[in-house]
């Protein structure tokens, strides 16, 4: 089972993290931005589980943390989508560039 060394997993999770951030920065659509945020949160979960499993098998702190992260991510996504829908009703667009009336 320990065939896959920890570094590979960490590589995957960091890669996933930066993909999420790249998605957040470039995608024009608010919903897809939300999805890329979920990606980053999942990469963090992978991190936690990997560390817990490989380095500190005796304790389960990492696992508890992952459970809470998942639940909070869900709550956050729900509220975010509600706000985006509200935004859509006013701006008639969910383009991230569109909602910049307040600047300078």
């Amino acid at each position, binding site marked *: 089972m320990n065939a896959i060394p920890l570094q590979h997993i960490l590589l995957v999770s960091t890669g996933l993290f930066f993909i999420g*951030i790249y998605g*957040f*920065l*470039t995608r024009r659509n608010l919903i897809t*931005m939300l999805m890329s945020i979920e990606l980053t949160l999942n990469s963090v979960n992978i991190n936690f589980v990997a560390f817990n499993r490989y380095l500190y098998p005796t304790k389960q702190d990492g696992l508890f943390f992952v459970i809470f992260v998942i639940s909070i991510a869900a709550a956050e996504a729900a509220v975010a989508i509600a706000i985006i829908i509200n935004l859509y009703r006013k701006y008639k667009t969910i383009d*991230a560039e569109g909602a*910049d009336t*307040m*600047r*300078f």
Partner: protein
Amino acid sequence: MLSATYIALIPLLPLASFLLIGLLGKRYLKMASGPIGTLSLLLSCALACITAFQYFFQAGRVNGVFEKITVFKFAWLNFSPNVSIDMGLVLDPISVMMILVVTLIALMVHIYSLSYMKGEERVSTYFSFLSLFTFSMLGLVLASNIFQMYIFWELVGLSSYLLIGFYFDKPSAVAAAKKAFIVTRFADLGFLIGILILSFHAETLDFTTLISRLSTPGSPWLLSISSASFMGFSLLTWGLVLLFVGGAGKSAMFPLHIWLPDAMEGPTPVSALIHAATMVVAGVFMVARMFPVYALSCPAALQVVAWTGAISSLFAALIACTQTDIKRVLAYSTMSQIGYMMFALGVSGYGGENGLGYTASLFHLFTHALFKALLFLGAGAVIHYVHSNELSKMGGLRKHIPITHITFLVACLAIAGVPPFSGFFSKEEILMASYQHNFPIYCIALFTAGLTAFYMFRLYFSIFWKKELSADSHAHGEGGFAMMFPLVLLALFTLGAGFIPFGKFISSDGLPLTSEVHLGFSLIPVLLSLCGIFMAMAFYKKESTLPDKAATVLGELYKASFNKFKIDEVWLKVTKGFLFGIVGRFAAWFDKSIINGAIDLGASFAEVVSDTVRMLQTGKVQDYAACVLAGVLSLCLYFLYVWM
């Protein structure tokens, strides 16, 4: 001797009358201000005479010298333990003589002004300023401390400013007053720096200690001051020359004389008192007070005094010959006579026979005060009668104003140096002193004596002879008793003053000095003055074209002397052109644009930066996230590399 309070009363009485009239004059004592001023002057003049009499005759000599009596002294403002300004009164021969002259002339002027200024609306302020002037002049004369003299020196300058600018609704009077104050103020700057230099090295401000420390040859203070040098001259020379600059400013010597002719804007009695008898001789008095230091320790400074005096007397005499305004002629003649006193001091040595110059100078100061005041008051009477200063409007007045005519003639004879009159004796002693010590100055003095006779009698003949004036145009008479009494009294004094044995009272080292008249020696000056008088008679007794022909012959010299050798214009160019024009305007411009500009630039720079920085807030969420990411990355880079 009189007790200290009576002597202190001499200066304090005019002060009291100044305060009384000054504060209450306008509303309550309008008419009474003249009599109050004159009364207080009368009292202080009487006290002065008593003190003089007791000082010279009853107190008498102590081991051959009239010793200095310090009436009282209290510390006014102390700078460091031994250097402090203390107010005090000191009696010594020259100061007693001066209080006599000042109080006498002031009394005469007060009486004269009673009627001269009768119609004037601001007569109370006039009399209060006159009393202020007398108080500060007496204070100056009796000063025991060099700084106290400087203090009263400035007060004298102030009162002359106020009196010159008395008719302040005339712009010319205002400008003249301003000019007088600024020129004397400029000279007082030299006086102040001179005081600083001398007092620092002599570690005292008190006259007696200062003079004794700087004149006894071996004293450590003298060594320290003469050893220190600045740009080639020893500090002692610098100090004394700067003191003399202060004196030259006040006595209108050559470069700093430009304010005296303009000072004639003031009322004539003022010119009689201030610009003839008292204030202008303050410079001579100061040099006389510091004479031991000048003579014993620093002959170089004495040379400066001598030559400035000589140049000024010749220069002023030349200008006086061509002026048309009678008060300006008298002003230039005052300047010339003070030049006489200055170079008399300049040529004099110290002690015994070669101290003749010192006694001659003060004797001439005494006599000159009398007859010059008489000349001015006479001129005042003439102006009062003719209502104009210009010579062309006068002529043939001997029948209209006989008393003024006689007294004016007496004064002219005195100033020309004709024998029986007082002017002859004092001028003869000056010529004797300059003949013994400095021949070139003697020649200048002789030539100026001739010129003086010429321009005085030019004045005399133009006013009283020349052409018949139509009688009816001037209905009113010569002026009340109050105007005539001072003229007559002063004329009597001019007659008698010559015979006072001045050497017995005042001499450079205090020991009595007997001076007799050498008939042979004084022949030349008398002849010169007589020929000056005859030339003037020939030119001006009757309407004649001679003066115009002489003017064309002299041509260039005449024109130059007529517009006062353009010294005024030079000074104007220096101050208005350079100081105000370039430096002042540059400073104002520099302040407004550069420094103010810098501050405003800073503010606008901040605004420009804040405008550019605001552009960062683009309003787009993704830009914000990008900036957050950039922030985190830069922090990581900084900490992982730079900080580690």
